[in-house]
């Protein structure tokens, strides 16, 4: 017999309710948060000031050496400084050294070029740091109730906590540092980190045992074990990454640096060999002209912005509330081929919802609905609530369960229901348990309902049979509600070339139905943690890169195995250690954003490289005629921009070369927009904008600057 359990209807909601955040809501809040940030504008004054100071500090050759392209510009600047000083000395040879004023102008312009490049890097660093600091602010020194051996509690500063220490937090306390709950359960306000005001439940054991420093305990008491040393939290690591102290070049960045160094060497060859060529053609070329030609030709635009682009990538991840453990992880995200997503919370809204009532022959639909509602009124599970919601308000009104006894769902009975005050027994549950129940009482299970239940199952729904006094009255259809807009996101992913895989505990039939409906490419049904791991390994053996998101300790091996493993901040410490990113919002759809950030990062580098090299065409047409026009008048025909004079032509090219760096800082920081239109179409688009544009823009820019410069000459 089913045993009745008393249930106090006035008690607070069951704790697990709180953890079920409406994901769509989170997205909205997040979006608003992002908008607030954007309102402040890209260039905040205090950041600009800090970056300006840093750009001078970064002139230190030891630091510049990391960037071969800009390092050569710095050498060129130094040469021009020497030339300027020499040409100012009395009796200087103006023919070879050039006019002092002109030399000085070139020197200043080259210095600006280096400073602009440094500024780009420093500014990206400052922004990333500011972002990280604002997160770190939440963890100012707070008093911690250190739990000593023997159970006594002393209050210490949070900075004195070491890994392994245990502290106690009660309602109203700010959690002093990151840790894992080893005892108790508490509701916690994590809004300081996530911006989400609804409190969450964290409890010892299980997958939601992690607490973050700076968040506030709202109720209950927990004992927490410290998991990080001071200065070693993920945020601290991220700040170090952004600041450059521990920033390592990613593999793609190294390859690109080699390519740029190669181009720089080509122009070293061009400029060095130009000297004997010019001598042969009886054309004296000043040192200023050589240095200008060289600096204009080498890819300073991308060289100057390269590290800023990389930092901005991590910064964008941070703005999406994702902490990355390395720059490489962000880049790898752009290469992902396969995405493993949990069904619940990602593809479907947390829980199933009732979508229909089916009454058996001879039972009025209203009666079925009324009984269903009665059995669910005190049922606080989302399924139960959804039944009440589905019934029309007219039917619900006036129904009362005064004096009724609730029968809670248990794993053994697999039914729930209510015993009304008048003795009516209403039960709802899976088909086979209700069938047992009614058949034991000597009643038949009606064929029409059996058929209906079959139908519901094959449509991916979950059927519930309803009985009143051990007689079947009908069935309720529960359906997984697929999040609105999710199939468009999968479409977008498919166009990016990413295969989506749904992971679910459902049976294969239901899984298949939901997979098809949501538009995922594959699914793992009745999934156990090992299945995820196996799937990842299989895909990796076939050469694909896999990303996944997880929170539980049993996810940790798969998180470590995946090429990009995103752990939820609410997850266990083990999961967070295993993954290479931590999502502060605990939002499973975040992976899609991370992939786009990774792609943007690579694209920004690629397009600016193309732009930078394409610019050289126009610079050649400005400088080469300027070098030879005086002695070889025939080469005037190459001066297709009709620049005013050789001096103005060279100055214009150098000014353009310097100004284009700050002009492109916003693009470098925001990243080139990614459009999932297929690789070839994307290449066409970027080749058109940044390749062709890179050829045309400097022609216009240099001509314009020449017109302005001419006014001052």
């Amino acid at each position, binding site marked *: 017999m089913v045993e009745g359990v008393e249930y106090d209807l006035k008690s607070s909601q069951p704790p697990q309710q709180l953890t079920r955040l409406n994901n769509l809501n989170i997205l909205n809040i997040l979006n608003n948060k992002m908008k607030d940030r954007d309102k402040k504008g890209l260039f905040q004054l205090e950041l600009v000031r800090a970056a300006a100071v840093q750009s001078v500090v970064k002139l230190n050759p030891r630091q510049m050496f990391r960037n071969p392209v800009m390092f050569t510009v710095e050498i060129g600047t130094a040469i021009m400084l020497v030339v300027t000083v020499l040409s100012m000395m009395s009796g200087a040879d103006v023919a070879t050294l050039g006019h002092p004023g002109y030399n000085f102008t070139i020197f200043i312009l080259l210095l600006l070029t280096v400073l602009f490049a440094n500024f780009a890097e420093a500014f990206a660093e400052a922004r990333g740091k500011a972002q990280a600091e604002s997160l770190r602010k939440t963890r100012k020194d707070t008093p911690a109730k250190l739990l000593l051996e023997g159970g006594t509690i002393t209050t210490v500063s949070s900075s004195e906590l070491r890994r392994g220490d245990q502290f106690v937090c009660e309602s109203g306390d700010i959690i002093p540092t990151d840790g894992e709950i080893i005892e108790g359960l508490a509701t916690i306000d994590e809004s300081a980190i996530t911006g989400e005001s609804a409190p969450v439940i964290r409890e010892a054991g299980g997958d939601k045992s992690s607490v973050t420093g700076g968040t506030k305990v709202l109720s209950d008491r927990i004992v927490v074990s410290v998991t990080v040393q001071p200065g070693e939290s993920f945020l601290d690591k991220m700040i170090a990454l952004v600041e450059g102290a521990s920033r390592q070049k990613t593999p793609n960045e190294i*390859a*690109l640096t080699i390519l740029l160094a190669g181009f720089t060497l080509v122009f070293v060859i061009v400029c060095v060999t130009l000297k004997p060529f010019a001598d042969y053609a009886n054309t004296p070329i000043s040192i200023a002209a050589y240095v200008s030609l060289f600096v204009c030709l080498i890819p300073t635009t991308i060289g100057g912005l390269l590290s800023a682009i990389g930092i901005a990538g991590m910064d964008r991840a941070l703005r999406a509330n994702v902490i990355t453990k390395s720059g490489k992880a962000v880049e790898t995200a752009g*290469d992902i081929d396969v995405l493993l997503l949990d069904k619940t919370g990602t593809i479907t809204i947390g829980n199933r919802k009732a979508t229909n009532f089916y009454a058996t022959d001879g039972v009025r639909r209203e009666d079925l609905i009324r009984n269903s509602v009665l059995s669910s009124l005190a049922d606080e599970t989302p399924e139960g609530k959804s039944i009440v919601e589905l019934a029309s308000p007219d039917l619900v009104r006036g129904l009362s369960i005064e004096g009724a006894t609730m029968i809670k769902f248990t794993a053994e009975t697999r039914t729930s229901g209510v015993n009304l005050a008048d003795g009516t027994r209403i039960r709802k549950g899976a088909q086979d348990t209700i069938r047992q129940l009614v058949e034991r009482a000597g009643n038949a299970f009606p064929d029409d309902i059996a058929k209906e239940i079959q139908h519901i199952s094959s449509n991916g729904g979950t059927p519930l049979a309803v009985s009143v006094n051990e007689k079947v009255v009908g069935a309720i259809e529960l359906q997984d509600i697929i999040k609105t807009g999710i199939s468009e996101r999968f479409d977008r992913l498919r166009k990016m070339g990413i295969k989506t895989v749904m992971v679910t505990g459902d049976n294969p039939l239901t899984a298949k139905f939901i997979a098809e409906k949501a538009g995922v490419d594959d699914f793992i049904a009745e999934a156990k943690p090992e299945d995820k791991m196996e799937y990842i390994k299989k895909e990796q053996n076939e050469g694909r890169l896999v990303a996944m998101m997880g929170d539980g300790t049993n996810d940790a091996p798969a998180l470590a195995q995946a090429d990009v493993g995103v752990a939820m901040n609410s997850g266990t410490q083990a999961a967070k250690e295993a993954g290479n990113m931590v999502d502060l919002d605990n939002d499973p759809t975040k992976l899609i954003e991370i992939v786009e950030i990774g792609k943007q990062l690579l694209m920004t580098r690629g397009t600016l490289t193309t732009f930078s090299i394409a610019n050289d065409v126009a610079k050649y047409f400005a400088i080469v005629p300027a070098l030879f026009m005086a002695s070889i008048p025939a080469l005037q025909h190459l001066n297709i921009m009709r620049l005013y004079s050789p001096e103005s032509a060279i100055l214009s090219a150098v000014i353009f070369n310097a100004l284009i760096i700050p002009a492109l800082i916003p693009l470098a920081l925001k990243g080139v927009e990614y459009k999932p239109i297929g690789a*070839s179409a994307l290449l066409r688009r970027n080749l058109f904008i940044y390749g062709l544009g890179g050829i045309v823009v400097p022609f216009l820019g240099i001509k314009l600057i020449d017109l302005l410069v001419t006014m001052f000459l």
Partner: protein
Amino acid sequence: MNTELLGVLVIFLLTLALAWPLGHYIARVYSGERTWTDPIFGPIERLFFRVSGIDPNHEMTWVEHLKALLTINLIWFLMTMFVLMNMGWLPLNPDGNPSMSPDLAFNTTISFVVNCNLQHYSGETGLSYLGQIWLMFLQFVSAATGLAAAAVLFNALKTRTTTPLQGLGLGSGVRVGLGNFYNYFLKSSTRILLPLSILVTIILMLNGSPMTFEGKDTMVGLQGDTVQVSRGPVAAFVAIKHIGTNGGGFFGANSAHPLENPNYLTSLLELFAQFIIPAAMVFAFGFYLRRRKLALMIFGVMTIGFLMLVIPNIVFEMKGNPAFSAMGVDQSLGAMEGKEIRFGAAMSGYWSILTTVISTGSVNAMHDSTMPLSGMNELLAMMVNAFYGGCGVGLLNFFVYLIIAVFIAGLMVGRTPEFLGKKVEAREVKIAMITALLSPLLIMGGTAMAAWAQVQDPTLPWLNNPGFHGFSEMLYEMTSSNANNGSGFEGLGDNNPFWNISTGIVLILGRFIPIIGPIAIAGLLASKKYIPESAGTLKTDTTTFGVMVFSVIAILTALSYFPALALGPIAEYFSM
């Protein structure tokens, strides 16, 4: 339509049409499939392998391939030095020609070993028949070296390793077998070069090219004076000179000489012969890898590049020289200075670009006399050196541009770059950049040294023409050496230690580094894990990617050489 142009068009299209089936055949040869030549050459090859003790089925890594390649080239170098410096007293010297000076022998040896065939001598007086035959042998083996290297590239790009490998490279213990070098090498000679050469030789003989070991003949001219006419095994020499994209002439005047190129038909034949293998190799690449679309993309890029160079040349040469027009000289036949009347301006313009894009370097007209911008296009053809390119090596050169394009394009679409399912990473980019850097370094560096020497000592007797044209002559010589082309702007006094030694060094580096680089890249790629294609993968067999590759080639070449070209042909053009 103009008959001259029609002739050019017909031979161009005919070559393309025949390159397709030949490409199919070559792919079958390298993949070891059955071909109709098996019964004829199979026994000969087996005999070779039995005598030499080489196991043609022994799989070599890319490093072993390169070792084998360099070793056999070194042996030929030594043997050739010996022959050229001693042929005066060796047999087969009916005309009693002298042995070569050490620096000339050095230059000539390298020049023929590396498939360049820059000639600082004249065959009539500079070589005995033994020397000629020995050089003819080198024309076979140097072409076969290039073809075998390309076959290694084919094999490497087809290899798909399924298990992830770590620590690739030298001495890492990872063996990825890429076929047997000697097998590829021998088959290139027996199955491809030899049959085609025999065919061309027979047609040349039928049209009057000599094929004899007798010495000079005496001819009495129309005016009654007696002329000594040099002869020799010319037909066979000229056949492999073109089939192997060598270009080294039997006589000093190369294919402008009536015995090397008797009439319009043989001229068409020689145009066909030098073009057929480079064109067929691109198709063979597609057949071998079963990626015909990729091969067509490559072929399309090469053809567009070729047409952009050849069409202006034909137009310039047919329009005639404005400087002569101004003097009242009739230019209706085109700019005929330095050209043979039996070939005409159109065909000579076509030849001038075909021979420079393809690294043949044989000439049927004086390139020194072509119009300034025609000269620039000839230079550009050799600077790029990958629009078709030489036997096998053209594809290797193109591969380097391809890798750079793949890398930049890959970043532009937001994905770690990959080519044929293999990730292109720092090491590959490094090798590709070093290889791509070599050309500007050698060409500009070499020319700079020469220009510097001229400035130091203006009395040096090198230049026929001062000024811009003289500069072009020096630039051309270095460019031709680096591209292993072998044609000359001539007018340059180049048989002296400076030019013999400097171009000799440029030849070696310009030959072997562009072979080592691509083979190393392909070898590294071969040992990488294969990544299946997805919708996010950048497809390399599309028109869009073709535009990308073309842009990379155009921009890289323009940026490297614009100042030099401005001081040479461009300045000359604007000064006219």
